[in-house]
């Protein structure tokens, strides 16, 4: 396992930024600075074990859903989006980023599920079990939102619905090539017997097909739980989840060798995620300079990342939801059961300029694509305090050094000398280096010029 050998040298600021960019949704300077000098494993453990505030479901989510009134349903979807966005803007926990990976694995979309109560329930299930893939897998089968999304609640003994069985193998556990069409047909039989009762899924053996089935080479009177257990024992399952974790945390095309190394940890830990992250994120491999900036930010990572960097996490939750939607990541509405494809799919001729415009207008305190002002969640105008942002860095009155600090904080890869000169020129806007003074009235506009130029760079889209 040479690949994942522990890196023991104390974290530099660059390395600290790399770690918090990949682990959290809020990779601020303050957070990165707080772990500089620590041993990587020590820093990873500290981030993993940081205390979390409780996150109760909205009150309405515990009540009986009204599944008739569309207006009511729509109102609750919006409230659900707000509820979750509020969390990712206020919690710095590593759990938030991990949950997004699971939401993008065990997908459900609110329009198909329709009932926000069930979507909230699914989110809370993923949240509680985010560090235990095996438990999550067992619970997703009878999850009310999933039962509705992939028709498990309509699957009938004798005439099973194959939807969930196929996606279980293909998208949730094994990946294509590791199961047969016959496995899908047989597993569909085993997944019968589920119905939704109020807020939860209930299993009724009377309704389940208890006959003999052959699934992944094993024959028996399998029920739903057996399918999960048989699947989790497949070597392909650990590799499938290992690849997902590597794509979320390290690089988009990990080598087969690296995948196998991570899969080994998953198997020995019975699919618990904490040991994997601890080893992976403190490894020499993770800190390879070549892997800096290897991932493209999701809209969530872009928006929450910028808001937290500029310390304006009070920004209107509704606005964050709108921006994510325009950048093709509407909260709780993945486009297909495959989830958001991510990476290159985030960047198109429409979304790339839109990402640039979002960043620029955000810094000016404007909403993208309109003259409307940016507001906080209470509707008050909100303009990021770029001077306070600059003042958190040392040597703030040295023009060269402040450009370097800001670029280091906002960009995942080092800027070139030419880029440094260009950014300096943009910030100075005709003035001389020695004239730069963060307390001068003109510094506000100059700081905005600098940050806006940075967020326009393709490099800003990387993490």
């Amino acid at each position, binding site marked *: 396992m040479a690949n994942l050998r522990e890196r023991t040298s104390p974290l530099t600021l660059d390395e600290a930024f790399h770690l918090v960019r990949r682990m959290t949704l809020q990779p601020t300077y303050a957070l990165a600075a707080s772990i500089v000098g620590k041993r990587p494993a020590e820093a990873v453990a500290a981030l993993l074990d940081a205390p979390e505030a409780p996150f109760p479901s909205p009150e309405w989510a515990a009540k009986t859903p009204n599944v008739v009134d569309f207006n009511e349903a729509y109102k609750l979807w919006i409230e659900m989006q707000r509820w979750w966005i509020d969390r990712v803007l206020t919690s710095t926990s590593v759990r938030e980023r991990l949950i997004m990976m699971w939401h993008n694995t065990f997908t459900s*979309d609110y329009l198909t599920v329709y009932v926000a109560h069930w979507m909230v329930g699914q989110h809370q299930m993923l949240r509680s079990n985010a560090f235990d893939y095996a438990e999550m897998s067992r619970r997703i089968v009878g999850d009310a939102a999933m039962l509705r999304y*992939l*028709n498990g609640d*309509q*699957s*009938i003994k004798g*005439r*099973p*619905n*194959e*939807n969930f069985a*196929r996606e279980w193998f*293909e998208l949730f556990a094994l990946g*294509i090539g590791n199961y047969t069409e*016959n496995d899908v*047909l047989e597993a569909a039989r085993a997944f019968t017997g589920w119905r939704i009762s109020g807020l939860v899924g209930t299993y009724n053996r009377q309704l389940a097909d208890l006959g003999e089935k052959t699934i992944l080479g094993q024959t028996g009177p399998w029920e739903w739980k057996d399918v999960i257990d048989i699947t989790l024992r497949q070597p392909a399952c650990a590799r499938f989840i290992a690849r997902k974790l590597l794509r979320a945390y390290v690089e*988009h095309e990990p080598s087969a060798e690296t995948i196998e190394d991570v899969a080994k940890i998953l198997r020995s830990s019975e699919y618990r995620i904490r040991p994997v992250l601890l080893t992976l994120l403190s490894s020499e491999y993770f800190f390879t300079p*070549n892997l*800096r*900036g*290897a991932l*493209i930010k999701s809209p969530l990572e872009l928006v929450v990342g910028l808001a937290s960097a500029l310390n304006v996490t009070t920004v209107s939750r509704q606005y964050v939801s709108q921006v994510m939607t325009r950048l*093709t990541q509407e909260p709780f509405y993945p*486009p*297909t*059961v*495959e989830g958001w494809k991510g990476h*290159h*799919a985030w*960047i*198109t*001729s*429409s*979304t*790339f*300029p*839109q990402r640039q*415009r979002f960043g*620029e207008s955000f810094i000016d305190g404007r909403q993208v*694509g309109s003259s409307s002002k940016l507001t906080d969640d209470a509707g008050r105008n909100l303009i990021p305090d770029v001077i306070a942002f600059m003042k958190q860095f040392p040597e703030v009155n040295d023009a060269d050094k402040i450009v370097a600090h800001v670029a280091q904080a906002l960009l995942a*890869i080092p*800027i*070139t000398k*030419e*880029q440094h000169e*260009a*950014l300096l*020129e*943009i910030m100075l*806007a005709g003035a001389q280096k020695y004239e730069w003074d963060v307390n001068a009235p003109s510094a506000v506009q100059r700081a*905005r*010029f600098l940050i*806006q*130029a*940075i967020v*326009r*760079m*393709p490099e800003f*889209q*990387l993490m």
Partner: protein
Amino acid sequence: MNTNPTNEETASRIPRRSFLRAAAGGGLAVATLPTLIESLSVQALAGGDPRLQQLLEEQDRVLVLVQMAGGNDGLNTVVPFTDRLYYDRRPTIAIPKSKTLPLNDTLGWHPAMAGFRSMYDEGTLAIVQGVTYPNPDRSHFRGTDIWLTATDADVFGSTGWVGRYLHTLAPSYPTELPAHPLAVQIGNATSLAMLGSAGPMGISFRDPDEFYRLVNGGGGSGDVPSSEQSDTPAGREIAFMRNIARSADVYANVVKQANDKSGASSVQFPASDIGAKLKVVSQLIAGGLRSRIYLISWANNNYDTHANQTTTDDSTLGVHANLLRELSDAVTAFMQEMKNRGHADRVSGMTFSEFGRRVHENGSVGTDHGTAAPLFVFGAQVEGGRIHGANPDLVNLDPIGDLLMQYDYRDVYASVLLQWFGLQASTAQQLLFRDFSQGAPALFRKATTSVDEAETRQAFVRIGPNPASDFVVVQVNVDAQSDAWLTVSDVRGVQHRTASVESWTGVGRIDLVGMPAGTYVVTLHAGRSIAHTTIQITR
């Protein structure tokens, strides 16, 4: 008298025959303008002589791809109402014979598809039955990728068939961008179909005005130079983004111009998402955008009708009926608009979906993932009113119980590439990784309507001197019997010279005395086919 041809002559006869075959398809064979000319001022070219403008427009054959994402249930789309098994296997969701719209003695349209029925009846829509591929995959994502990359079921392709085709038109893309986008996808996503080896060969946007504002709405504090290209993941992602940003920058204007120029639609498009998208496509075409391919899709896997495909008490209503109505109504409006705007003859379209659905319904008033299904090809130049392939055979099924293949989906792509875009069989074979020309159904009325660039070059054997001054001698590949002549036009389209071609040798001599220096287009007219090349005149 020596009648033995030299080796050189033999070599030159082979393309001559292929050029002729292109021309002999029975109709107008129009050559694609070489990229060389595209890089000249195309607007100047089109802005002059109205005949040349017409010519340019004719050359731009357009294909509209309509993706029915999610796996369309073919059996409930084109209904085999004389097949008892169809009703046996689908007790709840089968469409009763009496409710279908007449198609022929054994098949009926889903009642929501009145528009498709009219197009079929008037001869502008063809059906290809039983389309899939060997060892079909029942995964949405794998199945979709296979269709978009045009690969075998066990090959994981990284480029799309459209992207590969477009790359042959613009080999130096994206370093040199053609004046107009080669392909446009309406929506925010970029389809794998459009991916070439050098990245996306097209652009995507939801709305032309919004696209323009996005690209041009930036602040003015200056740009930061690109970091050097480095062979790291980050370096590759930066290059990827810079290329996309650049094509967005270049094309936002031309897209907006086309959209502004198009004026109001002459027909009422349906209010559906797919109707709105086809409306945008119609405006861009009518406004003069010269993209070859437009791609539209439903936003989600809408055709994935595992449950509640129909209502429980009426199998002609419900989700699937609504989807088919959206499709049929939107495509009908679109083709009517193209007809009213005078573009019907150069616009065709085809539908596709990653798979059909199982023969038998499941217990949730739906159908699970299956295999073969019909697809539709539409357009005024489509050999319409025809059904390729037999009715679905519900007796002889594959081991899983699904429909067997009648046409490989790449047979249909081959029809498009050969018959609609007029590629040579060898080029189509390269693009589809295998020769599908034998199985390609005859879908387009004019067997060949354009000649690809390679063939255009082959139409001209030699041209010289170039640069020229007083005269130029042109040797072309045309049949001895054909009536061929040459014209010389300037880049604004004004014709300056005409010369005949000596029929036996294929040689024409053009007098250039008195013409101003500059770049000129030499056009070969042979029968009803044409080809272009350019010369420089120096003084």
